[in-house]
């Protein structure tokens, strides 16, 4: 009888010890990167309005294109959809250029741009086909979103919109349910690791209210019932050149470079309601990681994280010392190695080992004591 209860106690104690060991596995997993597990970055930038007076929507999308390229995402990983040609438009006094500010300081079009979907090709059907990957076999590679389950995707949409819809070329509209379903298809087919969805239209926050797939972080420029306003006009171009929300986001992003450690919480904290003239919103309930730990370059930049193990030491019998995790950032053909040792250090691992030893030791001591008591 006593022996049975002793065994029962032993079982309970061993399961508790096993649980602590299981948590140690989490630590081991965290050792390989507490932050995002993505290995490549993609961007889908959509300007859904046509006509010259919607110049500002095209410069919104091009501003994001320039930012995303500057932070490292290559053209092959960017799908840029522009519903009209603003830069070589016959109304454009500055051909080959698109500007986003009064005074025309930065040319967003530049000399090295690839627009994947232009003009009449920017339709709701093509947008959903790009996201879900279900396209005719004849569609060329540059027009496909070739993501896998370790890709972080930045989806940016701008145009005219309303409560749970966005107008495409003043002809058709896409609803929030359509985008939510497309994202769910992507989740089912493992086409993304995390999605960051940003939208700049009137009543933009309604567009992300219907998402139901995990790992999506969304932000919009205005609440339901609110308009999003343009920022300023340029007197020589003659139309509004940028929207307020996108202007302030781009202004914030100008302070970010590839090595920056600013987080999404910083970006959302920089929203100023009085300047933007509307209430931008954030939806993070579907997003697993805390916003304070999510880097902006996880979505906007082409920064990838790699683990590098050091070359084997002289005596192969000796177990290799814990490799520090490094971040390799590529920059115009040069590579910088920056070892980051604050994630997991030698001391941390020793501490975990000690914890393990202590838990099993305690179990053994208790077991011995009970055994001694029962046999007396």
């Amino acid at each position: 009888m006593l022996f049975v209860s002793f065994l029962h106690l032993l079982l309970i104690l061993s399961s508790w010890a096993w649980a602590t060991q299981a948590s140690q596995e989490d630590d081991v997993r965290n050792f390989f990167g507490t932050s995002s597990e993505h290995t490549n970055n993609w961007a889908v930038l959509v300007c859904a309005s046509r006509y010259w007076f919607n110049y500002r929507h095209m410069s919104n999308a091009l501003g994001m294109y320039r930012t995303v390229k500057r932070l490292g995402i290559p053209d092959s990983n960017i799908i840029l959809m522009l519903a009209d040609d603003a830069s070589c438009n016959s109304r454009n006094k500055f051909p080959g250029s698109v500007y986003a500010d009064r005074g025309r300081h930065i040319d967003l079009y530049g000399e090295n741009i690839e627009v994947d979907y232009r003009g009449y090709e920017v339709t709701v059907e093509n947008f959903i086909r790009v996201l879900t990957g279900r396209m005719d076999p004849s569609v060329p590679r540059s027009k496909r979103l070739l993501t896998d389950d370790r890709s972080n995707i930045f989806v940016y949409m701008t145009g005219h919109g309303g409560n749970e819809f966005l107008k495409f070329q003043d002809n058709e509209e896409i609803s929030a349910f359509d985008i939510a379903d497309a994202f769910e298809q992507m989740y089912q087919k493992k086409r993304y690791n995390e999605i960051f969805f940003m939208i700049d239209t009137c009543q933009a926050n309604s567009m992300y209210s219907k998402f139901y797939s995990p790992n999506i972080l969304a932000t919009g420029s205005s609440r339901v019932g609110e308009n999003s306003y343009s920022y300023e006009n340029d007197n020589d171009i003659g139309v509004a050149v940028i929207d307020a929300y996108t202007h302030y986001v781009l202004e914030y992003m100008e302070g970010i470079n590839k090595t920056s450690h600013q987080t999404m919480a910083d970006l959302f904290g920089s929203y100023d309601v009085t300047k933007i003239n509307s209430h931008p919103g954030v939806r993070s309930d579907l997003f697993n990681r805390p916003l304070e730990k999510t880097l902006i370059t996880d979505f906007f930049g082409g920064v990838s994280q790699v683990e590098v193990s050091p070359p084997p030491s002289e005596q192969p019998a000796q177990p290799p010392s814990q490799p520090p995790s490094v971040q390799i950032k590529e920059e115009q053909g040069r590579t910088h190695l920056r070892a980051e040792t604050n994630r997991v250090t030698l001391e941390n691992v020793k501490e975990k080992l000690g914890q393990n030893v202590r838990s099993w030791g305690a179990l053994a001591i208790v077991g011995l004591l009970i055994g001694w008591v029962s046999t007396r």
Partner: protein
Amino acid sequence: MRAGWLVKFLLTSSLAWSTLGGFQEEPFDEHLTLESLRDGKVFSKFSFTTLLKGVSPRDPRSLGNEDIAYKDQHYTVFPLALGQILREYAVTELHLSLNAGKWNYDRWGQPEESGVGTGAELWTWMGEGGQSSIDERWNGLRNALAGLFCASLGSLNEQRTTSPALSFVPEGQLPDWGIPHQIRHASLPSENVCTENLTPFLKLLPCKSLSGIAMLLNPHRLFDADWHGMSVHVLWREDEGVQIRLMFQAVFDPLRASPAVKKQDWSFRSIFDRTIERACPVARSSLVTVTLPSSGAYAVNPEPSSIIAGLAQFDITNSSTPLDISLRWADNFEYPVDFDAPLTSLSVQRTLRGSSQAHGQLSVVLKNHRAEPLSVVYLETMPWLIQFFLHTLKIHINGVPTDDAMSAMKYIPAVPHAQPATFQCLLSIPAGATMHLNVDVAKSFLRYTEHPPDAQRGWDLPPAIFTLIEPSQNGSLEASNRRIYTPALLLDLATPDFSMPYNVIIFTCSLIAFLFGSVFNLLTRKFVVVSANSDKKND
């Protein structure tokens, strides 16, 4: 270890020999031509030619098997992206042009490169045979080129594709495989050309835009030109091999830049806002040719390498100093009396007459400026939106109705919603005569879903193409590769009120809700009398 140096020596020598041999097998030439036109504008033509020696196009019958010919797949200077597309779809000859603006034949003459029609134009000669049909390969080729050049060539589907064999003679030769070759032609006049088309174009060049003549290709100036066009030509000649020619032509206006003082002067700085800093090391030859004006006092800087027959040649093949060529006149510019007089043997004008949205009249006016009769092949590849009434075709020469001016007519009628009309005929115009050609047309009423998003703008009709018939080497008359393109026409079709489906749905639903609601209430609601005294007590 001692033989290691021998191995290294052999490796490096073989590498050097193969690279040298590679360069010799793929000569790359670049050429820039500049000419001051009569009306003060400057015509510039960039031409980048790569020749794959001894290589022939892929036989379509081998499409099912792996393409294992070594020489055909290893390129050093030849662009790999384009080469792969050509092999994949077994293309023998390919011509793609992306133009914007209207080429003024009267003032600027006939260009050497004939394909100056507005918008995108793609035509290829492909061999028949193998497991995939020509139409399937044409579809794949269009989409592949659309992806490569960031152009919406994918919409050049069967609604825009025709097969005009007489108007588009191959510029090179067609290989003698014993299988017939067919042509496919499609054009999209509403296509925009912008920097995103120039970017992949430059990436196909061996030196990109970093050295050589391509340094001058500044998109901010090129797309400001009065007329600009970019084209890709792939052809095969039996004694040479596969040649790819990338061209960019533009007509600039120096008078626009100097509004106060009318000076026709130009320089690289003033037109392109760039200079040629260094030569492309891979180029076998790098030449700039400036056509010297025939009248007026002018100065060319710097001194040309040679002057041959009124053409100043600058050879920059091995130069390392920056080059900025300029041509300056002593006097201000004045329009010569004949600046508008036609420079070509044929002038064409095409208009769509009529004010109705149901029918109209297509009118073509041809003028023969030569002293002898002229024969042209007239091609219309009209989309199915316009239906011809061929029995109303009338031809007048100098105002006199004629019956025998047109011969060898080939007409493939349009199939609505499916296929464009191909109308091809041979016209003979007497010396110095004006020919009027009129045909009644019917305009379609499109289905609701067929309208483009900007339906009120109208539809662009592709240009009519006139191929000049000239005597060839052996004396017989045959179609040359000089073509004249008319401008695109804008067709105004009847558009519906696009808000009507929404209106009908809202109205009908409101009516049904109103009726149903009233009937339901009458049937189910119970009306009870409530005394008013109890209300006063609850103040």
